[in-house]
C-alpha cells in the first residue's frame, strides 16, 4: 500500500542526493553489497531508488521500506566516495519520510513510541524479558551479559548475554566526586546508554571510578533516556527521536562536557541537530548539546589530556595481546581513530596488534541485525576472520553494540577471543 507523497526530510538532504554520479565505486566498500551482490543493497542503488520516489516512478511500498532498511549506516561508501556523497543521510531521511507516509509497524511501534521514551518502564520490561530469557534460552558461555533488542532478538538463535541483575542507574549515585586527596579538575555528565545501563553496568561503575580517580566529578542524571538511535536512525521515527532528544538535552543542561562509552550513542547525540531540528529553538539547543558530547577515549586524550602513566593494565589483561575494532560510529561518523589506539599503546604490559580492515563494519547496526540477522552474521564472520588473523587474546572496542555482535560471532565461530570495552583494559 502506498502512502501520501511527501518528501520533507529527503528534501533537506537533496544536495547529497544529487551528489552521486553513479560510478558504482561504493559496491567495493559496502558490507551489505559484498554479501548480497544486488544493486538495491548499495548506496548507488538506494540513492537512485530515492530519486525514483521523488520522480514519481516509485512509491512508499513495503518493498521500498525493506530495501531502505537494509543498510548499516556504516558510512564506508561516503568515506570512499570520489564525490563524497553522503547517501546514509538520504537513507535516514527517506526512512523518516516513509514512516510519515506509512507509520511504524507492529511490534516496533510499541517499542519505539511507547517503551523507549519511558526509561523506568523500559528497564522493567528488559528485566521481565530477562526472566524469560533464563527460562527459554540457553545461558551463554563465559560471564557476558546483554540484551536490549530483547523483544526481537529472542528466539533467533543468537548467543544472547544475560540482563544484569541490577541496572547501572540503581547502582551509581547521581553525583560522584573524586576521592579525598584528588583535586576536582572538571565536572562532566555521563551518558550511560541502554546497553551499559541494562547489560554492562560494571563497565559503567568502572568508568565512574576511573574518571573520579583522575579528578573528574561525574554526574549521572537519572532523567536521561535512550539516545534514540534505534528510533530515529534505525526506524526513521523522528517524532520519538525528538522526544528523547529533548529529554536528554534537559537532563544534561548543567554540565559542560558529556561523555559516553558507546560510539553509537555519542554519534547519535551529536546527530540530533542534523536530523531532528525542526524548529530554530531545537536547532540551537541540539547544536549546543552536540558540541558538549565526547566519546570516552576522545575525552581522555583530547580534553582531560591524561599522561601515558595514567593508563595501567587491569590485572586480567596483563601480558595479553590486544587488537582494536573501530566502530563505524566512531571512526567514520566522528573521525575518531587515533585516540583509542593511543590509549591502548600507552598501557604497559599489553601488546597492541592492528587487525586488517579494523574499520570494517561488524554488521550489528542495531535494528539492522534484528531485521536481517542472517545477513548481519555473514558480515560479522568477515570481522571474526580479521580478528582471528591477528592472534590477539582480546578484541577491544568502544561500542557495546559492536561488542554484543563480536561476542555472538566469536562464539559462533569458536574463536577463543575475549571481547572487551576499551575502558575495561584500564585499572
Amino acid at each position, binding site marked *: 500500500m502506498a502512502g501520501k507523497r511527501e518528501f520533507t526530510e529527503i528534501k533537506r538532504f537533496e544536495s547529497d542526493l544529487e551528489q552521486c554520479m553513479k560510478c558504482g565505486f561504493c559496491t*567495493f566498500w559496502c558490507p551489505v553489497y559484498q554479501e548480497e551482490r544486488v*544493486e538495491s543493497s548499495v548506496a548507488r*542503488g538506494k540513492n537512485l531508488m530515492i530519486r525514483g520516489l521523488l520522480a514519481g516512478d*516509485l512509491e512508499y*511500498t513495503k*518493498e521500498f521500506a525493506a530495501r531502505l532498511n537494509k543498510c548499516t549506516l556504516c558510512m564506508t561508501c561516503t568515506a570512499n566516495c570520489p564525490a563524497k556523497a553522503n547517501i546514509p543521510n538520504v537513507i535516514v531521511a527517506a526512512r523518516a519520510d516513509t514512516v510519515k507516509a506509512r507509520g511504524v509497524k507492529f511490534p516496533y511501534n510499541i517499542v519505539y513510541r511507547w517503551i523507549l521514551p519511558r526509561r523506568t518502564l523500559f528497564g522493567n520490561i528488559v528485566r521481565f524479558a530477562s526472566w524469560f530469557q533464563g527460562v527459554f534460552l540457553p545461558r551463554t558461555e563465559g560471564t557476558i551479559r546483554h540484551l536490549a533488542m530483547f523483544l526481537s532478538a529472542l528466539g533467533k538463535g543468537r548467543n544472547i548475554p544475560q540482563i544484569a541483575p541490577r541496572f547501572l542507574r540503581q547502582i551509581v549515585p547521581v553525583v560522584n566526586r573524586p576521592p579525598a586527596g584528588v583535586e576536582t579538575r572538571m565536572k562532566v555528565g555521563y551518558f550511560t546508554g541502554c546497553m551499559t545501563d541494562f547489560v554492562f553496568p560494571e563497565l559503567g561503575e568502572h568508568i565512574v571510578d576511573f574518571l573520579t580517580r583522575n579528578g573528574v566529578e561525574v554526574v549521572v542524571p537519572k532523567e536521561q533516556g535512550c539516545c534514540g538511535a534505534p528510533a530515529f536512525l534505525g526506524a526513521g521515527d523522528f517524532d520519538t527521536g525528538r522526544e528523547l532528544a529533548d529529554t536528554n538535552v534537559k537532563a544534561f543542561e548543567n554540565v559542560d562536557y558529556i561523555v559516553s562509552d558507546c560510539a553509537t550513542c555519542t554519534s547519535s547525540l551529536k546527530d540530533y541537530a542534523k536530523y531532528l531540528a525542526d524548529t530554530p529553538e531545537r536547532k540551537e539547543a541540539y547544536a549546543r548539546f552536540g558540541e558538549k558530547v565526547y566519546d570516552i577515549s576522545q575525552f581522555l586524550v583530547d580534553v582531560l589530556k591524561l599522561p601515558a602513566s595514567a593508563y595501567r593494565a587491569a590485572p586480567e589483561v596483563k601480558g595479553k595481546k590486544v587488537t582494536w575494532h573501530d566502530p563505524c560510529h566512531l571512526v567514520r561518523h566522528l573521525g575518531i581513530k587515533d585516540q583509542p589506539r593511543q590509549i591502548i599503546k600507552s598501557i604497559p604490559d599489553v601488546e597492541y596488534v592492528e587487525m586488517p580492515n579494523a574499520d570494517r563494519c561488524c554488521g550489528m547496526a542495531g535494528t539492522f541485525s534484528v531485521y536481517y540477522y542472517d545477513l548481519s552474521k555473514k558480515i560479522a564472520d568477515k570481522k571474526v576472520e580479521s580478528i582471528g588473523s591477528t592472534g590477539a587474546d582480546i578484541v577491544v572496542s568502544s561500542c557495546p553494540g559492536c561488542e554484543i555482535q563480536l561476542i555472538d560471532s566469536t562464539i559462533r565461530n569458536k574463536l577463543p577471543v575475549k571481547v572487551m570495552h576499551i575502558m575495561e583494559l584500564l585499572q
Partner: protein
Amino acid sequence: MLKPEIVSQLQKITGKEGVLTAKEDLNAYSYDGTATWTHMPDVVVLPTTTEQISQVLKLANENKVPVTTRGAGTNVSGGSIPIKGGIVLCTTRMYKILDINKTNLTATVEPGVVLQDFNIALAKEGLFYPPDPQSFLGCTLGGTVAENAGGPYCVKYGVTKQYLLGLEVVLANGYVMKVGGVTVKNRTGYELVMLFTGSEGTLGVITRITVRLIPLPAASKTMMAVFDDMVAGGQAVSNILASGVVPAKIEFVDNFVVRRIEQMTPMGLPVDANALLLLMADGNPAAVETDTQQIVDILKKSGAKEVKIAKDAAEAAAYWKMRSAGFAAVFGAAHTVLAEDVAVPRDKLAEFIKKLGEISERTGFFIQYLGHAGDGNLHPSIFTDIRKEDEFARAQAAMGEIFRAALSLGGVLSGEHGIGLEKQRFLKEAMDPVALDLMKKIKGILDPNNILNPGKIWEEEGA
C-alpha cells in the same frame, strides 16, 4: 511486458532468490554510469552457474525476450542499460576466482569477479593483471572483456585484449562454447576470443575467462609535472615516448580538475597549474631509477615549470587517487556532462589539444579534459543541462566537432568506453561501411532473433 510464465520459468532455473521483479529492484538495474539514459528491465536474473545462464538464454531465445547482460554497471557508454526491457542478466553473483596458476602465469575466473578483488588475490602471489579501467573498484572481469577495457597502465602494458587466452561463452541458443585456451600461443583457426572481446554483450554471454598474468613489478616511482600550457604538456608526452623509455602510465589532468579536487579533498595541489602530467615508471628498482631520471630530464626540457617525484608510496597513492577522482570531479560539475572518449595517434596529441581550444572558442562551450595522455586517449567533456533543449543540442553538436577533429587526425571514436548507446550516432562516420555491415552479419549469425543486448552499438534501421 513479460509473460508471467517466463518469470516462473526463470525462478525454476535460478531459484526464487535469483529472480527480481519488484519495481524497486527493476529501478536499480535501469542505469549505468552515464547521465543520459535509463530504462527499466521487466525482470532481473542473478544466475550462479553457466548452466543457469544457458537455460535462461534458451528460454529467452525461444520466446524472443531481450537479454541485457550486466556486470556491476560501472560502464559509461549506456551499454548495460536494458533499452528494450526484457531480462537483465546480472553476473555479479558469479564471483569465484577458479584458478591462479603461478607457473603457467594464468588465471581463470568467473565473470562477476571484481577487478580490484582479482588484483588483491594476485598480489598475494606476486602476480599482476594490468588492464586498469578506473572503475576497477566496482567493475567485473566479464564487463572488462565485453568492453575490452583499458586504463592508465595501457601505455606500457596494453588493454584487456592483450591478456585474454580463453573464454567460455554461452550463445544465444543456450549452447556453451569454449574458444581459445590456456596457452600463451594459440594459432587454431580464427581469433574467436577477439570476436567476443569488446562485443558489448551483443554476441554471447561470457561465463568463464582465462587471462595471462605478469609478475608484480618490484618497484615504481610516481612523478607529477606542472605545465603552463596544455599544448606543451601534450608535446612532452610525445617527446618521452620518442626517447625510448616507456613509462607505465602517463596521465593528463587539466586546471579545472586540479582545482575541483583541491576543493573536494585539499591535498596541496598546484591550483594555478594549467596542466598536470602524472607519470609512473615501474620495473626492477635500478631500471626505475634510471627511467625516472630520464623522464624528469625530458619533462624539464619540454618546458615543465615544476617536476615533483613522490617521496613515498603514500604520496604516490595520493596523486593517483586524485587522478581516479578526476572523473567524479568532472561529473559532479554540472547537471549534464557530455564526456567523450576519443583517442588520437600519440604523436598528434599536441595538435588535438590545439584543436580542442579552437572548438571551445568557436562554440562558446568550455571544454574540460583529462585522460590517458600516454596512449592518446582523452576524455573531453562539455558541461550542459539536458533540460535546456537548445543548449543541449548545441552541446551535442560541439561534441560532434570534437569527434570529427579526432577522426581527421587519424583517431577513433572510442578509446576504451565502447559505443553502447552514447556514441551510436557517430558510428557511421567512424567506420568503413563494409566493416559495419560485416558486424551486423556476424550478429545475425550468432543471434538471429536479436535477443542479446538489442539496440546497442549501431543505430537501428529507421531509427
